[in-house]
């Protein structure tokens, strides 16, 4: 046993110095930018992103062309002569029914619907979620179950009953009525979102605040709210895009004067009279989509963080 040990020791001592140092790989493993794996990966990614970006490209390009150029039929070619006339027309001159003031009317209607709906639904749902996550009260589980159940009922089932309720309340056809409908229908998913987020916050924080003498609202405003920016951003994105893109409630519960942008867009694009002005249609569609797009771009990072945070515990 000892003999072998000394023998190998002697052998390693006897080896030439360079041979031992240069023997085998050393340091970080070399990486090749153009490996087969990378080409496959990025190739696929590029193809897929082109596939999704192409329609957007066509829309932008078409909206910047004049009608004669569109009639030529080269959908993918860039505009020979850039014109912003279709955008102006879509915003301020396109006709829906008797009104010929373009999408601007619908835009402001949508703003007047979206802002109060988003604020109200988030304010109520966050308090709901906080109450359900941190406080025990009689029937809390029952209440939560009902709320979650609400998320699975198709809207169409409730469409007519809500019409009756709004009529009885004298709110049918008004902006207030639509705001209430949006706030109520956003409640299940938002409450679930907030409850899960507040559940994921350390419980001891809540206990410490109770020992420190903060009450229901004190803990909500002073402890929970300042820690919850990401989830508020998530809720805001969900609500803004959801309510802005809503078509169904907008048509059913309001009258033409209050129609949101989406309804107006539909009326412009689907009008059967006259020539189809593709460039105006494209511009109008892009205009309508700008708000959700803007929200995504501005808050994308927070959105991902908030979704991840809310998903930890359920």
């Amino acid at each position, binding site marked *: 046993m000892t003999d072998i040990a000394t023998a190998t020791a002697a052998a390693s001592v006897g080896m030439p110095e360079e041979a031992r140092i240069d023997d085998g790989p050393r340091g970080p493993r070399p990486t090749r930018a153009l490996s087969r794996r990378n080409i496959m990966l990025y190739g696929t990614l590029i193809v897929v992103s082109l596939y999704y970006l192409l329609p957007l490209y066509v829309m932008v390009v078409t909206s910047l062309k004049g009608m004669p150029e569109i009639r030529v039929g080269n959908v993918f070619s860039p505009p020979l002569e850039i014109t912003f006339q279709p955008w102006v027309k879509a915003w301020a001159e396109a006709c829906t029914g008797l009104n010929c003031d373009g999408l601007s009317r619908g835009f402001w209607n949508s703003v007047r619907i979206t802002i109060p709906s988003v604020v109200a639904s988030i304010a109520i749902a966050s308090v709901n979620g906080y109450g359900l996550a941190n406080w025990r009260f009689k029937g809390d589980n029952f209440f939560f179950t009902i709320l979650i159940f609400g998320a699975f009922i198709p809207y169409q089932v409730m469409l007519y009953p809500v019409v009756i309720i709004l009529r009885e309340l004298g709110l049918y056809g008004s902006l207030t009525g639509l705001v209430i409908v949006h706030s109520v229908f956003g409640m299940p998913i938002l409450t679930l979102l907030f409850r899960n987020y507040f559940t994921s916050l350390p419980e001891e924080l809540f*206990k*410490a605040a109770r020992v420190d*003498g903060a009450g229901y609202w004190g803990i909500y405003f002073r402890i929970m709210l300042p820690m919850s920016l990401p989830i508020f951003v998530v809720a805001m994105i969900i609500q803004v895009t959801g309510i802005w893109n809503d078509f169904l409630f907008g048509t059913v519960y309001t009258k033409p004067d209050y129609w949101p942008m989406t309804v107006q867009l539909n009326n412009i694009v689907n009008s059967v009279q006259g020539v189809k002005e593709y460039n105006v249609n494209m511009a109008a569609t892009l205009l309508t989509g700008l708000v959700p797009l803007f929200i995504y771009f501005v808050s994308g990072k927070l959105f991902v963080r908030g979704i991840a945070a809310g998903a930890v515990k359920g």
Partner: protein
Amino acid sequence: MHSVSVRDVSLNFGSVKVLEKLNLDITEGEFLVLLGPSGCGKSTLLNCIAGLLDVSDGQIFINGKNVTWEQPKDRGIGMVFQSYALYPQMTVEGNLSFGLKNQGVPRAEIRERVDRAAKMLQIEPYLQRKPAHLSGGQRQRVAIGRALVREAGVFLFDEPLSNLDAKLRSELRVELKRLHQKLAHNTMIYVTHDQIEALTLADRIAVMKGGVIQQLADPHTIYNRPRNLYVAGFIGSPPMSFLDGSVTAEGGGFVFRFGDHVIPLDGYVADTELRPEFDAILGVRPEHVEIRGENETSDTATFPAVVDLEEPMGADSLLWVTFAGQTLSVRIDSSRRFRPGDAVRLGFNLPMASVFDRKTEDRM
């Protein structure tokens, strides 16, 4: 006068009984440690005392006042949590003063109390920092400070050192003991699963298992006269060794029969009177077994054993030996070396040993 009294407290979660008819009296200025494995109900009991959990039955008194139905803030307690539970968006100063602001304490007094606590815990340089910019030890100091500024008189600690690394833990342990000496009139209730913390800090330890207090006594008694097999096995590291045998009467006294061996129970300090003929378990701590070389002579009875394994632990070594088919650990001076297979002789320090009834598992 008892500072904290728990009377017949029961707690059920649905059909699960976590605490049942639990009684505990803690005198003013006492440092009581609730010790037990996870899930034994020690944290639950602390939360009941704090008022963070409503009891199913029973009463809780703090400073002579029945606080069973009071909110946590009205109970006159300060609490320190394992995860520190500092408010992340507030500065250290904000954390310390949050509770006082809620109480409506005048601004000048808040300043004064915060400064005093900060000085005592040496966190003055960090008062304007956010918790995220503090180390674990500093955070826990702030958490202790938050309990301190309330000047409540009763401190509740929920495993406050468990999130710290070993070195910091022993440092803060000493600091906590100092703090308790400084605040001699403050009662402290401290939950931990770490027996070293319990033994070093406590005036009295309550060893809990399954929602029941197994033994409530000072650390010395808990260590040397464990009331039952559970306490004996839970306390002590390395743990007590147990030998299965029986107690019989022989000559004028009692002996412990174990295989072919007879260990006379001379000098054994019994809790209850020994009776002849029952199945018993002899528990001896590693430091209460003497070990001798094969040929050394001795005036007390010794028994042959074989060395299995040696574990050097720095100051001393732990020797695992086989004695009549059962394994036993022996603490020896690290300068004495044995090799596996060495034959040795064992001597037992019986005044420090414990005999348990196998059926009831209680100490005799």
